């Protein structure tokens, strides 16, 4: 083990020295390779999907769950509007997907996953979905996808920007947020304040009770408020500092199953996230040091079931990263990540701690123009177990100039059981084994030419996961995790985007489709053999999503449709939920006076009034409407800097 430690240190030293000696002279810096965060720069073999403003505009809400289910073909397991929601990309479970904010993984150290309903999309300027596995770069477990939330690079120009967004809709939906951005040549500040609420007392036909009456959803309201403060400092042209504060409280009622008469359960999540980063630009290298503190609190209470719990987790995360531009062809990146998480829950026997130190090394090699290769490594050491060495390899390149590109990646993933998996009482299983997986992907994409041709990408993916951790219901209403011997995932994914312009009319079309088989391939016990070869529960084989957009003369019309295939609800596939499709549409008018910008929008959600359930017996609203007003004001400085 010590040997491996040594190897990494030597590697680090070599990189630093190479940078110092060999490239004393100023050569053109790879500006992209400096600014691009390592998640994106070193995952060239993965398809990156930028979540654009039209996706956000046609989404029924503002959290990451709603936006991803509007504009991608990944499955979002959403319990109710405003309810908790987790991501399942390419047949994986929530823990196999990472959400990164300022480069830090937001997956809860106790649950091992992220509740996407707690992430407002407007806190960041850009959202990028990295499809497929990128374990060594984005955390060992990121087998399905990684969502990268990042801010635009600060411009350090003297201007001020004020944005106000107000939306109101059926079922007591209200959203209000203010964005204030200001700066000069040394400092840039962004402040976001937000408040949202909804009653969600929509009507639905309760088909699970006698006479199937139309009833109102009850105990389903939520309230969400918080603030984000981001500060960027330019100490001098090569020294940069960033500080961010994110505070949020999300209170929600948890509605009953359709088969229950009532619910009195509530949940409150409060979180505080602080992050700071320092960036030093050297002649041919970049040094980045960052640290964060996350405090997450969850309170759950059900007066009817007489159960309650409280979660408190404290995490310190830090990362040191050193990037060297050996030449125009080679970029090396290496560093270490340290994470210390403590969780104090009533439901654990004692409070639990997870300390992890990882060394990583990443290489971007561009031997010839428009061919890029990534080779990445990670070695993690923790206080519970030392995962093995995790490598990955990816490539991206041009096969036919301006016509056809290819990409692909292969990598190992290793996932330690989360603290809840091990210690939650009742149900936690201290004998759980870690998951060990290999994932592969190969794809082609067409290049965006001048001829207004559609951009198409197509990827085949495959992965084999040993000891897949699965929470299953058990006796007495308790859920408990166990290892499935092996799960095999295979499928394909295709993305199409097309833009066409006729005079003043702009057309945009984006289509996403995923087909996935995700099934147990080997079992430990004889009775599990019944489930071998069967699709895992709540993994739809087919997901289609399309957005069509027309812009003209300050108007824009948006149509979005998603189709979600059959989801099995039992592991022997003896029962399932019907496929469903939901359509949303938005009409927007932009009015611009000078530096003022008004946007008025009208949205229709669930246009065809489809009655559907994402999760069994969790009703979803029928057709509903909202109106919104966005106001933007830019104040530019009169004097040039």
């Amino acid at each position: 083990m010590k040997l491996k430690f040594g190897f990494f240190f030597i590697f680090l030293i070599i990189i630093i020295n190479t940078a110092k000696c060999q490239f004393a002279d100023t050569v053109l810096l790879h500006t992209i390779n400096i600014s691009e965060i390592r998640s994106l720069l070193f995952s060239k073999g993965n398809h990156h999907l930028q979540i654009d403003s039209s996706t956000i505009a046609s989404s029924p809400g503002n959290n990451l769950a709603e936006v991803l289910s509007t504009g991608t073909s990944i499955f979002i397991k959403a319990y109710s509007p405003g309810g908790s929601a987790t991501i399942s990309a390419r047949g994986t479970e929530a823990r196999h997907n990472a959400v990164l904010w300022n480069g830090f993984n937001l997956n809860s150290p106790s649950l091992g996953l992220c509740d996407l309903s707690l992430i407002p999309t407007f806190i960041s300027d850009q959202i990028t979905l990295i499809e497929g596995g990128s374990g060594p770069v984005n955390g060992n477990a990121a087998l399905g996808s990684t969502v990268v939330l990042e801010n635009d690079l600060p411009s350090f120009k003297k201007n001020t920007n004020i944005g106000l967004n107000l939306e109101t809709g059926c079922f007591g939906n209200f959203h209000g947020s203010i964005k204030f951005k200001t700066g000069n040549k040394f400092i840039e500040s962004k402040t976001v304040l937000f408040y949202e609420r909804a009653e969600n007392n929509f009507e639905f036909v309760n088909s699970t009770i006698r006479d199937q009456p139309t009833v109102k959803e009850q105990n389903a309201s939520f309230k969400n408020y918080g603030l984000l403060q981001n500060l960027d400092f330019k100490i001098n042209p090569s020294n940069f500092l960033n500080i961010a504060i994110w505070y949020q409280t999300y209170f929600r009622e948890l509605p009953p199953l359709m088969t229950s008469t009532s619910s009195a359960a509530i949940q409150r999540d409060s979180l505080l996230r602080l992050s700071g980063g320092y960036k030093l630009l050297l002649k041919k290298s970049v040094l980045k040091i960052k640290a964060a503190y996350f405090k997450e609190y969850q309170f759950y209470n059900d007066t009817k079931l007489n159960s309650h719990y409280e979660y408190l987790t404290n995490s310190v995360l830090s990362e040191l990263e050193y990037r060297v531009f050996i030449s125009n062809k080679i970029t090396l990146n290496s560093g270490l990540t340290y994470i210390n998480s403590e969780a104090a829950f009533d439901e654990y026997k004692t409070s639990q701690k997870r300390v992890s130190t990882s060394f990583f090394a990443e290489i971007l090699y561009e031997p010839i123009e428009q061919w890029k290769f990534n080779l990445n490594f990670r070695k993690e050491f923790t206080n519970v177990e030392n995962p093995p060495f995790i490598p990955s390899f990816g490539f991206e390149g041009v096969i036919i100039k301006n016509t056809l590109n290819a990409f692909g990646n292969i990598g190992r993933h290793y996932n330690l059981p989360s603290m809840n998996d091990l210690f939650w009482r009742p149900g936690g299983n201290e004998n759980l084994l870690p998951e060990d997986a290999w994932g592969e992907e190969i794809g082609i994409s067409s290049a965006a030419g001048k001829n207004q041709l559609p951009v198409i990408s197509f990827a085949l993916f495959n992965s084999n996961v040993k000891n897949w951790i699965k929470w299953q219901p058990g006796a007495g209403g308790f859920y408990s995790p166990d290892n499935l011997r092996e799960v095999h995932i295979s499928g394909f994914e295709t993305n199409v985007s097309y833009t066409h312009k006729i005079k003043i009319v702009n057309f945009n079309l984006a289509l996403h489709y995923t087909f996935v088989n995700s099934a147990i391939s080997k079992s430990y016990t004889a009775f599990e053999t019944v489930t071998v070869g069967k699709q895992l529960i709540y993994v739809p084989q087919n997901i289609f999503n399309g957005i069509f957009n027309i812009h003209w003369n300050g108007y824009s019309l948006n149509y979005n449709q998603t189709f979600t295939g059959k989801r099995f609800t039992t592991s022997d596939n003896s029962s399932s939920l019907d496929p469903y499709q939901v359509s949303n549409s938005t009409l927007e008018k932009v009015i611009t006076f000078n530096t003022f910008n008004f946007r008025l929008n009208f949205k229709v959600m669930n246009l065809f009034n489809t009655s559907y359930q994402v999760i069994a017996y969790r009703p979803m609203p029928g057709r509903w409407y909202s109106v919104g007003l966005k106001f933007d004001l830019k104040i530019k400085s009169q004097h040039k800097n």
Partner: protein
Amino acid sequence: MKKLKIIFVTLSLLPFIFMSACKKDESAKTTPANTSNGIFVINEGAFGAANGSVTYISLNSGVVTENLFETVNGFPLGDIVQSMTIHNNKGYIIVNNSQKVEVVNSNDFTGIQTIGGLQGPRFFVANGTKGYISDWFSNSIAVVDLNTNAITNNIAVGNGPEQMKIVNNALFVTNVGGFGNDSTVSIINLLTETNIGTVQVGINPNSIQKDINGKLWVLCGGSTGPDYIGGTADDIQGSLWQINPATFQVEQQFTMAFSSHPLKLQINGTGDELFYLSGMDGYTGKVMKFPVNASTLPIQPSINKDFYGLGIDPLTGGILGAYVPGFSQNGFVFRYNSTAILMDSIMVGVAPNSFVFN
């Protein structure tokens, strides 16, 4: 322009392509079944999944009908189908986490009425025109007028009232502890509908039977302790108690081996042999047989397989074991003859927990 046309056509067709893929089957709602000679298997389903069901095994034809209630009545039973009791040709199906009782005709399974107003119903017994429902959350027994199916009274008992037995206008209620512990059997005078006292038994009594001699037998599961794990140092083992229902006195007591948590006490048709499941986890166990006149507890199981539910055919003495391979897949029923020789196995719904013979 041509290209644009193609795109528009494709786009406008898309919704229809997908819509045609998910046409709904509108099947007839009420199709009565003949359920007058067979076995109902109660499949509780997984908590929160609302996939509880009843499987019917016809003894006339041998045909197995899955999901009987929904097939006949057009709507699902609900979340955690806890138990079913037949009284005067009516089946009273208790759906615990849907807080209701579905009343059906026990000979064709057509629904009659839904009894609501309950919090956490568990079991049902009846005497003439009165029904009694044990309720975990309210720690009481709801009295139901079986002519109107209205709740007429609530009688407070101990923690987590579970199974019940009626002997001579006295209702004996095992208080299993609910979310905590209890070690009493409550006694209710059914004429006055009042709680007249308790009998002290072992910790967490979960089931009760009356034997050929008119004596009551109460099986106590013991406790797996605060760690919820059987077989650890904080365990309290189970026990079997004999109560005289006339004097309310304990007459015999048998203590199980350490870390044994027995459950699902059954009795054969002649009333001279008790059966129960004995295991460590508090939820499953191997089949044990105890003749009511025996002086010691059995050591060797009659059937060496871990079951979640147990039933004894009152006519043939055949033993039925409900096997749960996992709560997210269908379970199985293993049928044995009266000498515990395996006859066959049948796939049933999710998490079979008990049997009702009609």
